[in-house]
Every structure is written in C-alpha cells, then in structure tokens.
C-alpha cells in the first residue's frame, strides 16, 4: 500500500462527516479535488517540482486527522469562511493550482477556512496577525486553509506565525490563496518556528491584478521538514512582486522552497531573494522559476539565491530558472553556494573573538540582508533578535508566546 491509500480510504469513509462540518463553498469543490488527488497520488521525486522532498515518506505515518474547529477572534478583517461577508466562491480554490496533489488533498480534507478580507480602498494600519498553534496529544495531521481577498486599493500587512505548542509529531498541509484586485498592496509574512517533529507542506498562490504590489516573506526559523511552494500570477500590468525567503537549518532539518513567478502581461516587475544557512546535517533546497510569457514585454525580473553551508555535512540544492518567451525583457538570475569565509573567521579570531562567536556573527550578517528588507519595523527588529538567537542555538522553541512553554 502506498501512502496515499490511507487518505483515499479515509476520505471515502469520512467525506460526509467532513462535509457536515464544512460549508457550501468548500464542499462544492471537495469531491472534484479528491478525484484529482486519487488520480495523481503523492508526487514522486520524478515530479520536477517535488524532486527535493520525499512526500510519500512524510505522509506515510499514521496520523490522526484533526477536525478541531477554527477559532477566530472577532476582528474587522478576519473571518471564519462560514461567516464571510462577501461571496467567496469566485476565489475559493480558484487561485490555487488544481493539479497539485498536496493542494488537492488539502481541498478534500479541510473542513474550515480562514478568510482575510480587506474591503475596497481600505488601508489597514496595524498588521493582521494570524497565529497557528499545533496542539495534540498524539501524532496529528492538520489541514489549514487561508483565503486572502484584497479588494481594489486595499492595503494590508499580514503576519502568519506557525508554532507547535506540544512536543508531538505534526503533519500540516496548508493552502493560502491570495487574490489581489487592481491597486491592492499586501505584505505577507510567514514565520515558521516549530519543532524537529513537524512536517509542513505549504502551498501559497497569489493572483495580482493591475498596479498591485505584493511582498511575500517566507521565514523558516526552526522546523522539522518543510516544503513551501509559492506561485505568483501577474495578470495585470504595472504590478510588482517581491518574494523573499530566509531559511535556517541545523540538526537534520530539511527546508525546501519552490517558487514560480508567472509574468502573463507586460510591464511587471518581480524580484526574489532567498537565503539559506544550513548547518550540521541539514538539507536545503531552492528551486525558483521565473516564467515570462510571450506577451509579457518589458518584464523586469531579478532572482537571487545565496546559500551558506556552515558544515561539511550540510547539503544545499539550488535551481534558479528563467523561461522567457517574450523578446523585450530584462531578467537576471543567479545562485551561490558558499562555505564559511575562513579569512574573515581568522581575522575575527585574531581580534580575540572566539570561533563559535565569529561563526555566529558571520551567519547572522549573511542572513541580515533578507531581514533588512522587511518593511514592518517591529517585526524586523524581532526577527533580528530571533535570527541571532537561532544561530546561538538558543531558539529551539518559540520564546515569546504563552502557549509554547
């Protein structure tokens, strides 16, 4: 029996139960998603976008599937999808790639969803914060769904924190769909601070209309196995997107980021910077594709992936890709994998800085470049501290939330 079989059987038995707990808009696409999953199965390493993560192995253990209800603190912009103030059918499972097996599985199993809705021309001053806590007394699978609708001229910052409150095995699938109408602006931060017992499969899909500006920051501070996918569809002219990532691996952690920026129309700009520091026996992977379609003239795009292997046993796979069908574009991509700068280490040690401290300073300096770009000042300051703590080995659990003690 392959891993998908247990999920297929589960769905056959429990689909009515899930539907009862869920709502019309989610149920409308559920069976179709299940069919898709059944046909695809879990992607093997031969599937291009999954070549660096063993999906089958991650989903093989027997997890109890959580159907805990979503708790939403009443707020102006955050809703349980069941209480959506707008018709979400035009968005739900419309931005996502329906042919991705993980997305299909998530869509089939998820019973509750979070909606962030920012109405037309509304500028949300304070960041909207979403905290995900993984809790459970046995190995648990969580399926999470977030829909973000930014109406015309809407402007917001959203920070999504991932914590694991219990020392337990957790498997998470997550699908985030972002729909930006014309002129919307969104800063979206995802910060993972879980435990080595956690596996995370997160798929983020972003649609941008005209004159939009989206920044997505994916920060993996502490984890077990993480596979993040982020796809951006630039569908209106004069829009821009920034995808930044910071991944820190130690022990035997695995961090796999896979991104696609699809320029479908002219005059859009994209920029991407992902940095990794992998230490001990950890493994990092980055694959990022910029796809410039035939009509997407005057595209400007810059993709950079820079990596530091801090130990001889750490591994980094990097695959920056450009696929261009237009003839008047400015695109650049590059990637580097380096080791600790021995000359800099020696210089610092000669000044009396102990080797471990010198290494920390260098790793911190290397990651600083990504953190520097975070626009939200309190978050940026918090991350400087967290990243440094992480490199000092003082961050093995989140230290600033009440639940994670």
């Amino acid at each position, binding site marked *: 029996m392959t891993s998908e079989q247990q999920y297929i059987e589960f769905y056959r038995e429990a689909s009515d139960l899930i539907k009862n707990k869920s709502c019309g808009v989610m149920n409308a696409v559920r069976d179709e998603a299940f069919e898709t999953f059944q046909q695809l199965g879990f992607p093997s390493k031969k599937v291009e976008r999954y070549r660096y993560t063993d999906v089958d192995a991650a989903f093989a253990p027997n997890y109890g599937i959580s159907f805990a209800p979503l708790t939403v603190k009443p707020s102006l912009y955050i809703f349980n999808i069941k209480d959506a103030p707008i018709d979400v059918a035009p968005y739900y499972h419309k931005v996502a790639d329906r042919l991705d097996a993980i997305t299909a599985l998530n869509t089939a199993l998820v019973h509750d969803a979070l909606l962030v809705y920012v109405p037309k021309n509304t500028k949300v001053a304070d960041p909207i914060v979403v905290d995900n806590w993984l809790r459970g007394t046995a190995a648990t699978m969580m399926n999470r769904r977030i829909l973000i609708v930014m109406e015309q001229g809407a402007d917001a910052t959203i920070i999504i924190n991932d914590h694991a409150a219990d020392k337990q095995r957790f498997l998470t699938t997550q699908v985030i769909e972002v729909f930006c109408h014309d002129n919307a602006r969104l800063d979206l931060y995802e910060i993972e601070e879980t435990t080595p017992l956690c596996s995370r499969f997160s798929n983020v899909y972003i649609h941008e209309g005209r004159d939009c500006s989206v920044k997505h920051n994916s920060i993996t501070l502490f984890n077990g196995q993480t596979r993040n996918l982020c796809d951006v569809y630039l569908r209106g002219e004069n829009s821009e997107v920034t995808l930044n990532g910071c991944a820190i691996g130690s022990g035997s952690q695995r961090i796999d980021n896979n991104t696609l920026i699809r320029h479908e129309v002219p005059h859009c700009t994209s920029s991407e910077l992902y940095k990794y520091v992998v230490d001990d026996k950890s493994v990092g992977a980055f694959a990022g594709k910029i796809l410039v379609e035939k009509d997407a003239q005057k595209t400007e795009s810059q993709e950079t992936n820079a990596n530091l292997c801090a130990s001889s046993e750490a591994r980094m796979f990097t695959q920056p890709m450009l696929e261009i069908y237009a003839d008047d574009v400015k695109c650049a991509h590059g990637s580097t994998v380096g080791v600790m*700068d*021995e*000359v*800099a280490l*020696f*210089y*610092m*040690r*000669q*000044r*009396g*800085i*102990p*080797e471990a*401290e010198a290494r920390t*300073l*260098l790793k*911190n*300096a*290397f990651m*600083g*470049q990504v953190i520097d770009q975070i626009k939200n000042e309190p978050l940026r300051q918090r991350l400087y501290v967290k990243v440094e703590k992480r490199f000092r080995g003082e961050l093995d659990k989140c230290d600033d939330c009440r639940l994670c003690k």
Partner: protein
Amino acid sequence: MLEIKNLHAKVGDKEILKGINLTIGDGEIHALMGTNGAGKSTLSNVIVGNPAYEVTEGSITFNGQNLLTMNTEERAHAGIFMSFQAPIEIPGVSMTNFMRAAVNARRQAQGKEPLKSTDFLKLMREKRKLVEIDQKLMNRSVNEGFSGGERKRNEIFQMAMLEPTFCILDETDSGLDVDALRIVAEGFNKLRTAETAAIVITHYQRLLDYIQPDFVHVLMGGKIVKTGTAALARQIEEQGFDWIKEELA
C-alpha cells in the same frame, strides 16, 4: 617576552620557514625586512596562529607560555595583535558590533565583566581620536567601503581598543600617503609602553623613521640571515639586498 626557536613552518606542502631563531624582550621593536617571498608574513601568521599554516618543528614561547598549543583567539587574549597587510571586508558585521565582541571576549578571558554600552562607546570615541578615524566609518560594516589608508588606520584603531602587549605590524605602511603614514605611526607610538614589544615588517626606511627599531633582521629563504641596528635598515634602503646575498655566498 617572545622567544622563537628553530621554527619551521609550511603552508600546504611548501616549507617556508626553515629554522627561525628570534628573541624579543620587553619594550623592544624589531624590524623585519627581506625580499618578497622570504617568509615575513608567514612568520607573523604563525605567531598569531593562522590555521592555514602548519608548524613542523621548533617552538614559540610568549611570556613563558607555549604559544603553539594555544588557538588563535587564546593568543589574542594573551595580548598578541597583528595589523594585517590587507585587512578584509566583513559585510554585514558592523564595526561597533565587531569591536564590542572583541573587547568583551578579551575581558571575559581576563575574568572581567563585559563593558557597559555607554562605557564601550566612550572608549570607542576616545581611541578613534588617536588615529583620526571618522565616526561614520564605525557605523559601516568592517572595512566595507574603506579606502586603503582607512583600513590601515582601522587596524591601529583596533590595536588601541584591545591594548595588546605584543604587536606585529605587517606592512602597515604599504599603500599609505605621507600624512596617513605619520598618523598611523604616531598612533602606534602613543600606544607603546615600556612593557610592549613589536615586530615591524616593512620594505621601506620611511616607517622606521617614525617607529625606531632596536634591532633590524633580514629574512631570506625562510631564515634570519643578518641582524643589525637601525643602520642596517638605512643601508638596505640605499643598497638593496644583493650585498647581503653576496656576503652569504
């Protein structure tokens, strides 16, 4: 203070030092001269404990301690400092953080509490004046965007911050204009005490006009082949090294 006996060292498979003997007493300045590739920089790197160099024979003792069993930072804590020939940039590490880490590591090794922020900044301000280095440079990353002269001044500034007892100036004069040379050399002289000693590596007499050596050694083929007083440096300035080679032949 420093005693080097029959020191052999190699980098990779190449033996560069082939039996160095050198004794340096408290308060003494020793100039080290010699052609390119003679082993001057290798000797400095071996003294400070650069892991890229391997000592194959001989000994170095520093105030009675066996230096060769100490790692780079322990030697620094013991009071050894090298002004680098080509100080490197460390992007992303600010001068202030770098200096704070260095000063506090040294204090910790001496069993002292870390400096309070205000005291540390006061110390920075005080020492900066010594080599006339701009505050703006302190907010940058280490040596990033520094001119050649600024880097050399920065080395002496770091020396002032760390108050070593034994210094190596590895071609600190190279790339400096006349005024910068004077500032750097005078800065160094102000830091000298009766207890501090130094090795000054240079190709030129000019630096030795400011920092007057008690002894001048000529290094050739990995050995010290001639030792003299300040007069020897002046003679080399006028006549080069050929006459020494002829003497040896």
